[in-house]
């Protein structure tokens, strides 16, 4: 229960401190052993900070353009240059981080949450529930991620929450598959039988016993699909089916007049793509490190 083995009421502060210290030290140790993962985590942290603090950190308004500084190259005032409307690219990148994070995290968590639930229930119950759920998931899996997201976004409309739902949909069957196979593995042991024998209800079993055991692969999938969700979101925005102007979104920043000005003002298309690249890279590296930590035996190269 306590890290140091000594605990007196008056020492609770000291106990907490030392627990925190040891956690930090553990973090430090892990970081040294997995430098790439640490780097990924750090980059993500920076992006989160930028996104949260956007109104304070962004040097200019992302929507208001300066008509005297149209598509100007990076300079001392506009560090990454301006776009066709005279809007500061750095500020738009910072605000765009909000969208990418929100959508990436939202879609990833929603998809994994719903998918895992379906997978666990299907695996646990077996029988027709399982067969039907599997076929439905198979059908969903047959849709390329972008295709499903595009169709859903077109149907639901270009609001942010719709984009999140649209991007969560391709993740659901993949998470369901993983969760289901975890349950099947558990079923093969006597674990569940034992739990039932002690009188646990099905729901309790699934929640309290099955779920924690599938957390590891689910977490890996969540980080893997975080990157993919962000890329798909950018693709949706680029095609015009996602976030709309004049809001700032990384995918949107590369579409429209950006492509027409690309030869004379390449920074307009280069930087947003670079941002996406960095964020996906970071989440991939972090995901790899997490996977290594949780189960180094797992095959590394596909989710």
């Amino acid at each position: 229960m306590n890290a140091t083995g000594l605990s007196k009421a008056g020492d609770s502060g000291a106990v907490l401190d030392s627990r925190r210290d040891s956690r930090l030290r553990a973090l430090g140790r892990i970081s040294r052993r997995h430098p790439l993962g640490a780097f990924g985590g750090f980059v993500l942290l920076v992006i989160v900070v930028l996104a949260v603090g956007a109104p304070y950190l962004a040097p200019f308004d992302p929507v208001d353009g300066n008509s005297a500084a149209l598509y100007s190259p990076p300079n001392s005032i506009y560090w990454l240059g301006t776009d066709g409307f005279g809007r500061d690219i750095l500020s738009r990148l910072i605000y765009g981080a909000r969208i990418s994070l929100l959508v990436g995290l939202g879609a990833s968590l929603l998809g994994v949450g719903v998918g895992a639930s379906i997978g666990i229930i299907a695996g646990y119950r077996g029988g027709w529930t399982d067969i039907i759920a599997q076929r439905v998931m198979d059908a969903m899996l047959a849709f390329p991620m972008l295709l499903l997201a595009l169709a859903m976004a077109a149907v639901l409309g270009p609001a942010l929450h719709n984009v999140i739902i649209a991007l969560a949909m391709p993740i659901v069957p993949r998470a369901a598959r993983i969760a289901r196979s975890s349950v099947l593995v558990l079923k093969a042991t006597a674990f569940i039988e034992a739990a039932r024998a002690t009188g646990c209800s099905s729901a309790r079993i699934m929640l309290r016993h099955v779920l924690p055991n599938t957390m590891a692969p689910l977490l890996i999938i969540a980080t893997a699909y975080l990157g993919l969700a962000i890329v798909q979101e950018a693709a949706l925005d680029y095609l015009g089916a996602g976030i709309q102007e004049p809001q700032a979104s990384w995918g949107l920043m590369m579409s429209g007049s950006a492509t027409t000005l690309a030869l004379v003002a390449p920074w307009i298309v280069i930087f947003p793509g670079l941002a996406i690249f960095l964020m996906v890279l970071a989440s991939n590296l972090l995901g790899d490190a997490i996977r290594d930590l949780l189960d180094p035996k797992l095959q590394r190269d596909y989710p």
Partner: protein
Amino acid sequence: MKTSRPSNCSAISRRDALKTAGVAVAAAVAAPRWASAQTPKRGGTLRVSNGGDPPDFDVHQSATYLTQFVGAPCYSTLLRADPRDYNRLVADLAEKWDISPDGKTVTFQLHGGVVFHDGTPLTAEDVIYSLDRIRKPPRGIVSPRKGLLGNIASIEAAGPLTVVMRLTEPQPDFLFMVSNPYNVIVPKKVCEPLDAQGQGMKRHIVGTGPFRLTQAIDGQIYELSRFDSYFGEKAYLDKIQFFPIKGEVERGAALQGKRIDASFFFPNEAVLSTLRKVPGITELRRPTPTFVNLIPNVQRKPFDDIRVREALSLAVDREAFIKTVGPLAGAFYHSIGLMPPGSPYSLSAEQIKQFGGYDTLPGLGGNVAANRQRAISLLEQAGVPKDFKIVIITRGDLPAFRDSAINVAAQLKTIGLDATVDVRDTGSFYTMETKGDFQLVAHSVAMGGSVPDQIFGEGYTSYGGRNYGNWKDDALDNLFRDQSREANPQKRTELIKKFQLEFLKTYYQINLAWVGYGAAHLNTVKGWVALPDIYANMQMDKVWLDA
């Protein structure tokens, strides 16, 4: 290398060449004689690129250059613009025409020996069917320019090649209405059954023009070949090929690489200026009767309140708009009033300044901050809450639409409105617009002519095809009709100016800037003359290749 720099106030000398009612004019056969220093060579294929596929081939139902550019070489109108003088009309299908002394009867004498591409001869019936199709479209057929021919009471044949049109009122601008480049003549025998099916001429081109359609592969190529039984002088070119290339940069690169010979649609200044530096390419930009309007849906709260509409107009700094959207979309021009830049009917600076927001036009020295303050208080008075959500719908494929909307949304934010843009594809954009399913729309209105009856008739009357905002105002409509039938030029000028003042007061539509489109072609392309109108003179019958 012929270039024309965009300037803020382009001075095009405009001679008023309207025929006035009351004077019978028997126009001589005006056979177009294009001044040409060299002898045109025959043969060759002209490769042109447009910014996309034509959504369909039915010119009457269309409002986009994508259809009109492909259709124009295949069809004829009764009259067409003189390439040497945009304000004059010369013969096309109509050999002769005259107007009765009372100005209410116009008789057209058609060319003899005209055949359609399918070999059938043209008769007065085809002209009657075509014009009736425009002014009284059959069920299932859409006609945006219906109102332009609204003054026609009846059209009859007075002989196999004679068409008589009776007007309700005399109309000095009438011939210009008829000669709108979209008002092409289609064959009754082919079109009528297709109209009955509700399909119209969407998948077919059968016309009397110098070229006919020989190949159409969506996404790749649209090919026209010379029609050797053309009633006029045979075209010089063997073929015209249209290639859809969406990206302007790619189009410019294709031109530079000599993979295409011409593109007549370059909104973006950066691309055009890249081409300016290339030897062997002629590029130009000229103003056109295209203007960007902000159109509120008057049927929806709070846009039924004139204070709100005025606030919208006050919010927009037009000079900043022109500076920003100009390079992106060609919206470099502005006019004082509702008529095109440099028009003799333009208002004075003093007159325009009284309307909210218009003093921010370049050179008029308006105070943007003060305007916006006033806009905020007007919104308060009208009870519009802060951060009121407004969605501006627009078209995604044209910068004049899309980038205008983006800039306007940003400017509306300065008066406390939470404005976003909904970029739509052409199809669903028009659907929403015509159903009135929007709050605010940023529309780049491209007219097929620049006379008052065209601009006001289509753009600023209750029944005009561009009244997307669904406002109704009998006084304005009556004032329009008054100027339309006024024979005396001085009186008419007064009425035209009065109309503009009365309309501007209402803020039913808020004018921002005028658009000029760029065009570029290899120097081997000869005989193409750019008129201050993108739709005019696109039949290509006088174009030849100096290969």
